[in-house]
């Protein structure tokens, strides 16, 4: 059967081109792979190959013709014994356009969700453990280790890899004792090669394991960020749900003390932006433990942002056999009526100190610890702002594109009419971290700045 040879699209953006030169003539026999013509696209001159075998029956577009639309018939290919004159030529075939479903905009509402529905559980003042539960005092460091160790006892596909996690017992002693308990098959020292071992971790997760990848600090994870985002976060989507990376990337994040610009960056806002990742940034020891256990059990890649200064801080931790904290549920640390202070991770230190100071001045602050940044419990923020009508966010990261910026935009869109003052986002200063002690102190957010921000929004 005679077939039409159509003007091809030869680049992602080509709509028309010039038929520069025919390399075959009527009556020539062609077979698959033979070059038939040269076609000029918007970018280059391309060779156009035959796909089917046959005889060139008729050339419909002469060489030198410009502006030939994609999918116009340019020649007729005959099978042996066919006659060119019998072939009717058709109009250009329209390239298929993506189907456009009309989007109805009713009542001025945005017709699509800004993000997929996330399950949020309303935050409460009550803790995540049953009343009467015995408590023990633990540092964040111990709580993180216990969380990992309990999950490793529970599921033998969970393993820990990273620099100095095994024999050295952890650069920050988070994995202390774990090599002894679990052996070198499951607590694995890696060479200093973040890009490589993050990729191996993601591959192991594709292969059915549940890796915990420790970065000595999240600053070094920038070497591995391609695997975190392109390989771990996107694969479930790109595979149509067939496979993903159930794993945890963890380590200290943000400023420690006097370690300079390259070792002092808060990545909360970076990772929070990525669909496919979950992002956790605990403050207290009980949350560090409960969220770590949830992170390891989660079927998605989880970014678990710890903080070196918090490692040694002691908190009450429930003495329960299996204590977990759900993602997407903020914790209300302090109830108040005049202002909502929203923070997470080490930012909570400033938020709680500021609330104490403000109380002395008769200002009642409600303090919310987000605990997870993705999914984020924005419902609890909105509920609180509807009560207090004012909001200040607190974080150590940089101001432009901060976590606070996002919270502020959510409040504007969902509770604008409840606001009695603009939201103030308290952040670290817009500078690389300096080394000098006095400068470093000024580069970070301070309690006094939080107090001042609250006084500004409460017009005191």
């Amino acid at each position, binding site marked *: 059967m005679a077939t039409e040879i159509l003007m091809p699209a030869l680049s992602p953006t080509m709509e028309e081109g010039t038929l520069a030169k025919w390399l075959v003539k009527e009556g020539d026999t062609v077979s698959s792979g033979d070059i038939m013509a040269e076609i000029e696209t918007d970018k280059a001159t391309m060779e156009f190959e035959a796909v089917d075998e046959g005889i060139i029956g008729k050339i419909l577009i002469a060489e030198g013709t410009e502006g030939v639309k994609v*999918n116009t018939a340019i020649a007729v290919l005959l099978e042996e014994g066919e006659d060119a004159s019998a072939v009717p030529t058709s109009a250009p075939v329209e390239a298929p356009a993506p189907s456009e479903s009309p989007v109805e905009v009713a009542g001025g509402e945005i017709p699509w969700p800004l993000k*997929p529905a996330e399950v949020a559980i309303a935050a409460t003042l009550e803790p995540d453990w049953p009343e009467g539960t015995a408590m023990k005092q633990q540092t964040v460091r111990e709580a993180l280790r216990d969380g990992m160790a309990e999950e490793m006892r529970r599921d033998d596909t969970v393993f820990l890899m990273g620099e100095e996690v095994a024999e050295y017992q952890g650069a920050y002693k988070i994995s202390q004792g774990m090599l002894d308990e679990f052996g070198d098959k499951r607590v694995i020292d890696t060479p200093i090669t973040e890009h*490589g071992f993050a990729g191996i971790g993601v591959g*192991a997760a594709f292969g059915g394991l549940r890796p915990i990848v420790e970065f000595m600090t999240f600053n070094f994870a920038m070497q591995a960020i391609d695997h975190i985002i392109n390989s771990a976060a996107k694969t479930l989507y790109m595979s*149509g749900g*067939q*496979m993903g990376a159930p794993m945890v990337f963890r380590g200290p994040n943000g400023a420690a003390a006097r370690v300079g610009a390259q070792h002092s960056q808060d990545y909360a806002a970076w990772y929070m932006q990525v669909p496919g990742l979950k992002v956790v940034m605990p403050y207290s020891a009980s949350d560090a433990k409960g969220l770590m256990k949830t992170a390891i059990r989660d079927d998605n890649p989880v970014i678990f942002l710890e903080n070196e200064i918090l490692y040694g801080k002691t908190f009450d931790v429930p003495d329960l056999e299996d204590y977990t904290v759900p993602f997407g549920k903020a914790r209300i640390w302090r109830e108040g009526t005049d202002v909502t202070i929203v923070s997470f991770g080490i930012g909570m230190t400033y938020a709680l100190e500021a609330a104490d100071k403000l109380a002395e001045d008769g200002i009642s602050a409600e303090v919310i610890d987000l605990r997870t940044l993705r999914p984020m419990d924005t419902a609890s923020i909105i509920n609180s702002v509807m009560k207090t009508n004012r909001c200040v966010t607190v974080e150590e990261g940089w101001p432009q594109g901060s976590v606070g910026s996002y919270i502020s935009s959510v409040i504007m869109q969902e509770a604008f009419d409840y606001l009695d003052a603009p939201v103030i986002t308290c952040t670290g200063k817009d500078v690389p971290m300096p080394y000098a002690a006095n400068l470093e102190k000024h580069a970070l957010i301070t309690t006094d700045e939080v107090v001042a921000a609250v006084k500004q929004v409460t017009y005191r």
Partner: protein
Amino acid sequence: MAARKATSKPAAAKPNVSAEELTAYYKDMLLIRRFEEKAGQLYGMGLIGGFCHLYIGQEAVVVGLEAAAKEGDKRITSYRDHGHMLACGMDPNGVMAELTGREGGYSKGKGGSMHMFSKEKHFYGGHGIVAAQVPLGAGLAFADKYKGNDNVTFTYFGDGAANQGQVYEAYNMAELWNLPCVFVIENNQYAMGTSTKRSTHSPSYWERGAAYGIKGEEVDGMDVLAVKAAGEKAVEVCRAGKGPYILEIKTYRYRGHSMSDPAKYRTREEVQKMRDERDPIEAVRSMLLTGKHATEDDLKAIDKEIKEVVNASAEFAKESPEPALDELWTDIYA
């Protein structure tokens, strides 16, 4: 080291291969070639968008290595991935429908040419970032070693990817931890438009493994039987727990890097010479005929059968509906 080199001339009939096997390789390679030609045609018609990297010319690499694989073995590669998927038994309809971005595609139309996966066939993608699949492949091998089975992972990458740092990070750990991973360097001599001569002074890629203690060899990638033989050797090393192995397979892509590459960095004569003298499919075809394993008519029947499969995949890919708009929001989280 030269002693490791595999023979490069396709023998008229090799004793270690049956007529059935040879016919199967012919069919598998022809399926890839016809499929890719059809994909190129659909791209020209605007039915396939974006980037589309064809495998034409390199067919013997995947078909030869799949002949050395067993059930449970895994494979992972770059964005030039259609051949790998067909060779490991994925359905041409599902692959073509992914190329056209339709619901019937392997990723429901959400991945495209460069991002396709099949859990069932142990095909782990389809990766668009050059060399990212190398540590990922080592990680898949890590998982099998951890679980204590004897599966092997074939980790494919090109001569372009072979210059990325993460390849050597992966080599180092793969050897350190004895991972059952066959690193397959598909050296088609061009990283997009940059020839190997212009990108490295290393005389060969496989020899770089020696720096990490990994054995390897160079293989003639236009000879499916040479590839199969090298694959069997590599797999044996890995299954025996003796760590990774590197195969540098010398091959050639006939088409441009992607559909929009005019390939001006090499001469038409160079491509034509390769097609005329070293075509991997023609080589097997001639073995089948000279060995009297098949007649011209037998081969014509195979050609027809393949053409029907490919045409059916194109029809399926055209008729399968676009994904429902709700699919935008699914598969982000498990």
